[in-house]
């Protein structure tokens, strides 16, 4: 390459760089001037808006008269709610893991969860009360938080009508996140509450709505908690937690004006103290606890759950305990469960053997095992401990020639439904209490309890205790 060509090339390069720099500079200047113009336009727009005192009703700050509204009350309610919702979120995630969705697509009610299943682990079988406690807490605490959510939302309602509706981009984005927060919390509570009452009005699968809805809500909650922490600390430092809790109605005073605009500029005389308002919400929580915990505790306390779906006493016979799907509802015919019924044992893998077919009498002739276990529903109720007798799943695995089964596909006679089949994990197959139950409390199973045979696995979600079992397929 000659020197002349080299220098020509250099000059071309230089001019390219110069032109690029000029273009960048023009862009930058354009951006600055256009952002300045946008800022000017936004200010003009804000100036053209009517002033709050020219507006009707709730957009005027003086519309809001409660003397107890203010950062102190909102902060205390927010802290209580935050603690409760953390427990709800944790128990919710655990309940999701309890289905072992990673084991098989058949267990996965929310395919497409992607990263949101990052924490999944193989659900244990010990302690046997694990799922009962988890769901009892999730559902009962969820119900108990309803009055706290209502009180918290009441305490911040003036913010819905704040004026101007948007002050700057930061304010706009934060309000959008508050829409996700409020929409999310109400959405989660409503879907959960109507689902436990079997009123399936929501659009689509409960699992999908409640699971992804929770993540949308939690995304907004994390940011809200982060942004509001300084406000909460300030409010509690100034108001003093104990001082306010010792203040009665007669001594209740409005808080000094706050930056957030919660404190009324024209407060009415107090009709309730702040501690009274907290006690009101707390009494609601307590009442809900007393009237629903019985359905998950069981025994003589079940009847205290007078408004809960599974609070009714079903009698004292061996088969008198709670069910959630009847044989009639699942269209199980007598002809399928009678003398012609056979249990098929299969093994998949490199060398699948011939399937084994067993009658109920043959199953009863095998070594029988008895365990006292409860069936615990995702809806938060429990059957309480029942004495189940049947053949251990690990004995059936050996019979099928799959001593070290990696999975077990349980299939029911049911024709439809999300849970007509379930896949169990190695831990669930090998647990000495896991069984194909044939009898309960010394009596043959009834059709509604899954006659001729049903699966019972400790600590598994209720729907994984498949009823009317027809085939067990062990994977290797």
């Amino acid at each position, binding site marked *: 390459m000659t020197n002349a060509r080299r220098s020509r090339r250099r000059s071309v390069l230089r001019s390219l760089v110069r032109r690029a720099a000029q273009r960048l500079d023009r862009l930058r200047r354009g951006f600055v001037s256009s*952002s300045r113009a946008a800022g000017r336009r936004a200010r003009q727009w804000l100036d053209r808006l009517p002033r709050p005192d020219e507006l009707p009703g709730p957009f005027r700050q003086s519309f809001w008269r409660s003397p107890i509204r203010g950062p102190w009350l909102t902060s205390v309610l927010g802290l209580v709610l935050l603690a409760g919702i953390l427990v709800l979120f944790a128990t919710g995630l655990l309940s999701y893991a309890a289905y072992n969705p990673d084991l098989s697509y058949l267990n996965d009610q929310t395919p497409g969860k992607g990263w949101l299943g990052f924490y999944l682990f193989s659900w244990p079988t010990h302690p046997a009360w694990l799922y009962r406690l988890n769901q009892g807490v999730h559902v009962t605490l969820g119900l108990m938080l309803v009055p706290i959510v209502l009180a918290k939302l009441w305490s911040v309602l003036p913010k819905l009508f704040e004026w101007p509706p948007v002050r700057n981009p930061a304010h706009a984005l934060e309000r959008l996140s508050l829409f996700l927060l*409020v929409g999310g919390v109400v959405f989660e509570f409503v879907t959960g509450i109507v689902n436990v009452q079997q009123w399936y009005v929501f659009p689509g699968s409960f699992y*999908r709505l409640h699971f992804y809805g929770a993540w949308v809500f939690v995304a907004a909650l994390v940011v809200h908690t982060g942004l509001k922490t300084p406000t909460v600390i300030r409010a509690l430092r100034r108001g003093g937690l104990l001082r306010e809790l010792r203040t009665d*109605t007669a001594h209740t005073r409005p808080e*000094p004006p706050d930056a957030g605009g919660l404190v009324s500029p024209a407060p009415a005389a107090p009709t309730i103290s702040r501690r009274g308002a907290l006690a009101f919400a707390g009494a*609601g929580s307590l009442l809900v606890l007393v009237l629903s915990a019985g359905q998950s505790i069981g025994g003589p306390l079940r009847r205290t759950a007078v408004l809960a779906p599974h609070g009714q006493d079903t009698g004292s016979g061996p088969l008198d305990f709670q069910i959630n799907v009847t044989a009639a509802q699942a269209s199980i015919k007598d002809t399928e469960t009678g003398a012609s019924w056979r249990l098929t044992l299969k093994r998949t893998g490199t060398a699948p053997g011939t399937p084994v077919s067993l009658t109920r009498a043959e199953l009863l002739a095998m070594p029988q095992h008895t365990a006292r276990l409860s069936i615990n529903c995702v809806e938060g109720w429990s059957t309480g401990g029942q004495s189940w007798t049947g053949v251990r799943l690990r004995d059936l695995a050996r019979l099928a020639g799959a001593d070290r089964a990696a999975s077990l596909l349980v299939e029911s006679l049911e024709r439809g439904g999300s849970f007509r089949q379930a896949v169990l994990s190695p831990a669930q197959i090998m647990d000495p209490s896991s069984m194909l139950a044939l009898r309960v409390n010394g009596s043959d199973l009834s059709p509604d309890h899954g006659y001729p045979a049903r699966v019972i696995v400790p600590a598994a979600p209720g729907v994984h205790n498949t009823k009317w079992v027809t085939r067990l397929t062990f994977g290797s």
Partner: protein
Amino acid sequence: MKRLARWYGANPLHLLALLGCFALAGYASAQLVKSHPVAVAVWFLGAVVGHDLLLLPLYSLADKSALAAIRHRSPRLPAVPWINYLRVPAGLSGLLLLIWFPLILRRGTQYHASTTLSPDPFLWHWLAVTGALFLLSAAMLALRLRRTPHPAASPSSASPNEKNGHNPAGAPRPPPSPATRQPPRTARQDADEPGARPPASGPPLGTDQEPPDPGHPS
């Protein structure tokens, strides 16, 4: 950076946190709205509207009406803050109805078919619990009244506030706490003045009531 912060209206960390929030929420919503996008959006929006613009105004209105009804009663009402003896049982009963109305009003049509349990008792249980709450509240009010002198015996100069129970037993109103102490109000100060305390002898307004608006032509 500074210009960005000024234009944005907050610390850039604020923007970062919110973008993180929307990223996660967007990721989850993609799955949330997969099968019924419009219906799910309607449910989300309906959740906000249903609570903020329907449920809350309704119960606030009920509370306000109860307070207004008291105001038009005879001044011989007992001098205890009795609105709460009405508010608490009504609120708790309403809470139970709000949570359990699908069972109480038999919305879940599958309930009997799937559980074999009777759907009948829920309405009666709710009515019984409601009755018990009001009875308990009435008993507590009666106990409170026995220990409180009747207002007929107290000086007739008691303010309406005291008669309506904001200030039990006609005790003198204690001084405001230092944090909220204000100079005495003058007639020129309007109701929108931040931090203004309620006038001690003003009408006993309920929570969230439209105040008298002297400065507004009607």
